[in-house]
């Protein structure tokens, strides 16, 4: 069982550069062909400074920094035992290629079901832009198969 002391744990601020090439790669990987996501001029015609990050992209900050997996490892949770339970996003400001954002995550709950056979780790993250404004928030629920 995961020690409940981890509830309230706040990770370090993670700096994440939004790179245009990475956004194009992401679009390719998910089959996105809408020019807004792959063509800078089309993005600008749609009112963006540059290619906007698509709706789910910002979780990459968590993976690139290894913050999520390393935190789980510190909690004693092996990678092979996790499943994604839930994911949600709230948007406040667009985030585009060329920006650097700061992402910080906090573990807000840990609970179990089925007598501990499944444990759930709830993690809330904030995404701040370079001006220090809250651009987006996301919530991840990780399921641990014990």
């Amino acid at each position, binding site marked *: 069982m995961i020690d409940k002391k981890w509830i309230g744990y706040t990770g370090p601020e993670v700096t994440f550069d939004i790179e245009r090439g990475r956004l194009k790669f992401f679009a390719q*990987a998910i*089959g996105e062909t*809408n020019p807004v996501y792959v063509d800078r001029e089309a993005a600008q015609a749609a009112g963006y400074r540059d290619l*906007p990050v698509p*709706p789910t992209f910002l979780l990459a900050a968590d993976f690139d920094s290894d913050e999520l997996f390393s935190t789980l490892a510190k909690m004693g949770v092996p990678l092979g035992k996790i499943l994604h339970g839930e994911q949600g996003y709230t948007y406040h400001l667009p985030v585009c290629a060329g920006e650097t954002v700061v992402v910080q995550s906090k573990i807000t709950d840990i609970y179990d079901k089925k007598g501990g056979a499944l444990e759930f780790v709830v993690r809330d993250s904030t995404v701040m832009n370079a001006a220090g404004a809250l651009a987006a928030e996301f919530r991840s629920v990780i399921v641990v198969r014990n």
Partner: protein
Amino acid sequence: MAEQTVNLAVGDTLPELTLPPVTRTTLALFAGASGDHNPIHIDIDFARKAGMPDVFAHGMLSMAWLGRFLTAWRPQSQLRNWSVRFLGITHLGDRMTCSGRVVELFEEGGEQRAKLEIQTSNQNGEVKIAGDAVVSLS
């Protein structure tokens, strides 16, 4: 924009998005692009050691497809918030379809908004992801 003024009603459905079958290549590319390098999605040896019969799709791949589905319907700048629950594993060979419908129309934050129920299901109609989204209509 003309299409924005089209009247919406509760029960209206969104145009579906059907994806090609999930392949190992799909998962390898998504691992690289998303940054989720968990070997359980790309390394069959690791997956088997973890008690799974084979690698399986990242939940976030399907959520990214739902993102495509939503932003094909309305521009991303109108997407306010959304969340999904991952109900079942999406397997290699699954042919996924994203679908959704309007369940509520309301005013919030000084704008008209629609609440949608969205899901992905495979070729056998098994729902793998379900959730909801709030989209501005203004």
